[in-house]
């Protein structure tokens, strides 16, 4: 009797923990997202991507399911904030975000101790910005835009990627909950895949 209730309690507790983790992380990302937009930028539509600090941290310290949930929630709710839920900007944001996640998640799982925080973040930034560039040129049916703009995209992706990776690393280091690895159980990720 006693062991059964303990097991049930453990599973329920983990679900509650997970839900509140997702909620808090989403709020964090949203705040960063809004802050991000307020920064003056040399190139208008290439965002610094501050929210990815949290996404990356979650990918490394928790698990990809939680990270994905937070990431998508942030993009959607963020779009609602910017009044753009049914606009082309949302499509751009969403596609960029999705592709960058699809690049970063495998990188964290397979490339990770060989690759550091900065490396993964760079790849994510490049993926995100290039996806947006390609979509924009497809929409205007003029792929010549790519030819003109890709160096700018590369430069800023590298720059911002470094910054986000750097910040994410220190964020993970300083927050004991993340650094301890305790949260990994809530991400429901096979342990042998973790960076040990």
């Amino acid at each position: 009797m006693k062991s059964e209730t303990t097991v049930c309690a453990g599973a329920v507790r983990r679900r509650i923990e997970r839900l509140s983790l997702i909620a808090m992380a989403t709020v964090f990302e949203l705040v960063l997202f809004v802050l991000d937009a307020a920064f003056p930028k040399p190139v208008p539509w290439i965002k610094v991507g501050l929210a990815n600090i949290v996404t990356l941290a979650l990918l490394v310290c928790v698990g990809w399911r939680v990270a994905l949930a937070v990431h998508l929630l942030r993009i959607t709710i963020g779009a609602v904030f910017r009044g753009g839920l049914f606009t082309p900007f949302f499509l751009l944001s969403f596609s960029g975000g999705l592709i960058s996640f699809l690049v970063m998640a495998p990188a964290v799982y397979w490339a990770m101790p060989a690759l550091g925080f900065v490396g993964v973040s760079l790849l994510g930034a490049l993926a995100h910005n290039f996806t947006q560039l390609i979509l924009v040129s497809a929409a205007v049916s003029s792929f010549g835009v790519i030819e003109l703009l890709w160096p700018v995209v590369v430069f800023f992706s590298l720059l911002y990627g470094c910054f986000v990776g750097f910040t994410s690393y220190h964020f993970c280091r300083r927050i004991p909950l993340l650094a301890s690895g305790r949260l990994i159980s809530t991400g429901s990720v096979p342990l042998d895949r973790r960076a040990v």
Partner: protein
Amino acid sequence: MNVTDRLATRLIPLLLLILLVVGIKVFGTRVLHRETVPEASYVFDGFAMGTVLTVKVLTHDEKLAEKAADKALAEVRRLHKMFDPNDPESELSFLNKAAGSPEPLPVSADMSRVLRAALRIRKLSGGVFEPAMGKLIALWGFNAERKNLQVPDSSRISAIVESTHWGREIVITAGGDSVKIGEHAGSLDMGGIAKGYAVDRAIAVLASCGVRKALVNLGGEIGVLGVGSNGRSWRVGVQHPRVNSRHIGVIDLTEGFYVATSGDYERYFILGNRRYHHILNPATGYPAARGVLSVTVIASSCMEADGMATAAFVMGADRGIEYLEQSGAKGLILYAEDGETESGNFTYAATGSFLELMKPDLAGQLIP
């Protein structure tokens, strides 16, 4: 959790999400397109009516421009088929063959419009503009693509001039859908007005395709929609009649105004120091010889501008300007005061309204 719960909590939100993304994709790309593409200038060329049709479109939407330009080219080619005197299957040839028939001949709406305009200009110009000089034009050889043009025999010229009653014998019936052509009316050839009509039609086709800013240039006859890349007007230069690389001034053309120029410097040949050009005087059967080098007319339709320019050319400078003023058009006539068109010296006469638009610079400026 049983199957239905799992379905409800996972599948349905997923489907909704997919629907959302697809919906945004479909709606969003069109708006994104317009918001991010700057307006660009697209130029299309095509051969039509024995010359080149150039359509310049300012738009965000390249595909639209291409489609509209293709339609405009098709329309001009359609009109060419109708008005081509060298094509035995054209409506024009049919009318020529059936001339002299006691019954009125049916005409298409386009032919009727052009004929009516031609006859109107004929009346207002005092018979100087004739739509039925086909035989004369063929005799001189400017229309057929013949080499080694020569001055035709004077007896043959006078034979035609004397036996033809010209436009007197062309009468359009009240309904406008048929025309009676007398036996001695001459052979229809609307070269002096057909290109102008084609420009009017091309502009109409572009407008109906949704194009808002465009310029149509058919062999020097020009019509516009909206404004050009300077945001205010389209910049149209007037060709210097003797130096190919120069223009004598620039007209700021806006929608609703059309420009046509008749000149002696494109279709001509020189024999024994004399220039024989393609603008014939129906009274003499010879190229108009009142010393005019070129006439540029701005009017509210290209068809009229074209016809009036041809008429004014034959009339000479003084009568020509008077005629253009009376017709309410803006005109410029470049002519040699002493009648010597080959000396290289010439001057100009213009309607007041034309001078307000442009001051001619006879030395000319290099075409940029």
